[in-house]
């Protein structure tokens, strides 16, 4: 791994990047980002935002600009979607994560959102990476679905060299020969990133598996693997979702997952304590 001047852990220096968004700290504790795949309407977004906040989520996700596999699929509400997200934040206080797909939109998305996301299909869109490198909002950089760890970290390096030091990595599953799940969630990447980089890493089990029944176990596994958080698709009425309806979690199921994460968190604290004792010996 050469030329990762800003992304890699400095020799001997174990300091990790902690990114503060309002009162949420990413890279410290376990952050849960939840919300709909797409912003479809004001009612749907705000109702979902209220539900995930009630269940204990820390941030709201929601797509206004959607890069879809088919040009005929729902492309997102654009600027109108950004205004709805801003309103959802005003109503719930949850900071907003949303994707940007066009370099011309970067400064505008920053006016409405708290964290800007680079989607898996745009991971190596270098002109977009350079543009988000110039702004003062944290960037959530998803792993390209065909990308190696090295390629991914090089993309983070693009953003960091631009002057934006706040990059959050996000594992979202890669293409393998397996077809039962939409992608194969590569959780081994979590401790690998921690070995090489100081940047926080979160996991997207919704896109990583594409199957509702598998999302909960993989969320718990992400925490066990040492991730700094998860980003998860929740819809107030999954059957009517305009995109990704098979992986949208209903709010009550999400609330159940939040309770389990809480329990696992105290186990993990105990386990991490053991590790420390061992190294002392």
């Amino acid at each position, binding site marked *: 791994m050469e030329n990762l001047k800003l992304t890699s852990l400095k020799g001997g220096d174990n300091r990790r990047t902690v990114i503060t968004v309002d009162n949420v700290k990413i890279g410290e504790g376990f952050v849960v980002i939840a919300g709909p795949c797409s912003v479809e309407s004001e009612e749907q977004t705000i109702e979902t935002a209220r539900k995930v906040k009630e269940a204990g989520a820390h941030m709201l996700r929601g797509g206004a600009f959607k890069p879809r596999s088919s040009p005929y699929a729902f492309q997102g509400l654009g600027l109108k979607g950004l205004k709805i997200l801003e309103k959802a934040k005003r109503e719930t206080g949850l900071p907003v994560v949303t994707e940007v797909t*066009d370099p*011309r*939109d970067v*400064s*505008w998305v*920053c*006016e409405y959102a708290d964290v800007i996301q680079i989607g898996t299909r745009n991971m190596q869109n270098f002109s977009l990476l350079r543009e988000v490198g110039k702004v003062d909002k944290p960037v959530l950089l998803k792993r390209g679905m065909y990308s190696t760890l090295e390629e991914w970290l090089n993309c983070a390096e693009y953003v960091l060299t631009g002057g934006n030091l706040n990059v959050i990595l996000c594992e979202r599953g890669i293409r393998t020969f397996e077809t039962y799940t939409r992608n194969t969630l590569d959780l081994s990447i979590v401790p690998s990133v921690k070995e090489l980089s100081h940047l926080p890493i979160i996991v997207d089990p919704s896109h990583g598996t594409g199957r509702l029944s598998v999302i909960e176990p993989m969320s718990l596994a992400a925490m066990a693997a040492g991730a700094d958080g998860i980003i998860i698709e929740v819809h107030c009425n999954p059957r009517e979702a305009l995109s990704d309806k098979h992986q949208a979690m209903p709010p009550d199921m999400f609330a159940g997952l939040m309770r389990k994460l809480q329990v696992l968190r105290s186990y993990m604290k105990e386990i991490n304590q053991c590790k420390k004792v061992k190294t002392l010996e």
Partner: protein
Amino acid sequence: MNLKKIRENVELLDFKILKLLNDRMELALMAKRFKSQIEDKEREKELLEKIRRNSTRLINGEFIERIYIEIIEQSKNLQRKDYNLIAFQGEHGAYGEVASREWNSDLIPIPCSESAEVLEGVETGLYGYGVVPVENTLGGVVGQVNELLINTDLNVVGAVELPIHLCLLTLPGTDHREIRAVYSDSQALAQCRHFLARNKLEPVQYYDTAGAAKMLAERAPKASAAIASKLSAELYNLEVIKEDIEDLDRNMTRFLVLSKEGNTEEGDKCSIIFSTEHKAGTLFRVLEVFARQDINLTRIESIPHEPGNYAFFMDFMGSERDDKVVRALEEVEKITSTLRLMGCYKEKKVV
């Protein structure tokens, strides 16, 4: 030109017609002040004749007369209702109008080009009320208005503290990515300097915020936006691209509401204006009276009156019916050359 473009132009024209009709009705309400009775058959006949003379091939006399009979009928209907007018400085959608609506939404706001015109109109009875800005947290004192206030006998009957939230407005359907020029008055542009720089927008000075919104709606310049109030967006049928684009959020303007009649309701704030002898310690002694009576001052402003002579504006908490306020004013009267209680009123703080 294709059908879509033609339809867009039709909508633009319809909007202009509506605005002009509204302006016409406002003039009708103003005209009422000069008329002893609403019905004036002579004038109506004269008006219809003039309009008939301006008919064209497409707009024939019969058609235009039908429309104008309706318009005149509606003007008379409005005149019969007991509307009270409140004048503000600026175009429709100006922050003065926002303040007047906050103070009393039953009044009909009428735009004036100058603050002097607002006061003059209230003095002559053309408008029942006038609203003028006196201070802004970022821009400071509104000097010209304070000078006008020295020379008026009008009463202060209310005050509004209004947070100034600036919005980026465009014509509906404008792609935000194509905006280049942003029109507004110099103060509003300065207050959004960082926002404009971040989005690579070019500030273009215009005489007024609401005026810029009006121009955008009427002339539809390409790749342009305006910075103005949310009310301007409603009035000129514009789209709000982004609210609250000001760099600092402590942007407040305080407005005074003036009237010929005094305030009849109990107030909790008073405004006075006084001048003192040109001698050491005279202002100090006035301030001392308020301190001894334990009255909280909220504003003091000195305005050059004549060379070497100053008038002082002072606002303080309390009602003119409070014993300590009565005592203070009695004492102050003895030690000032002139003193006038401009009014005791309730101040509305808009959140």
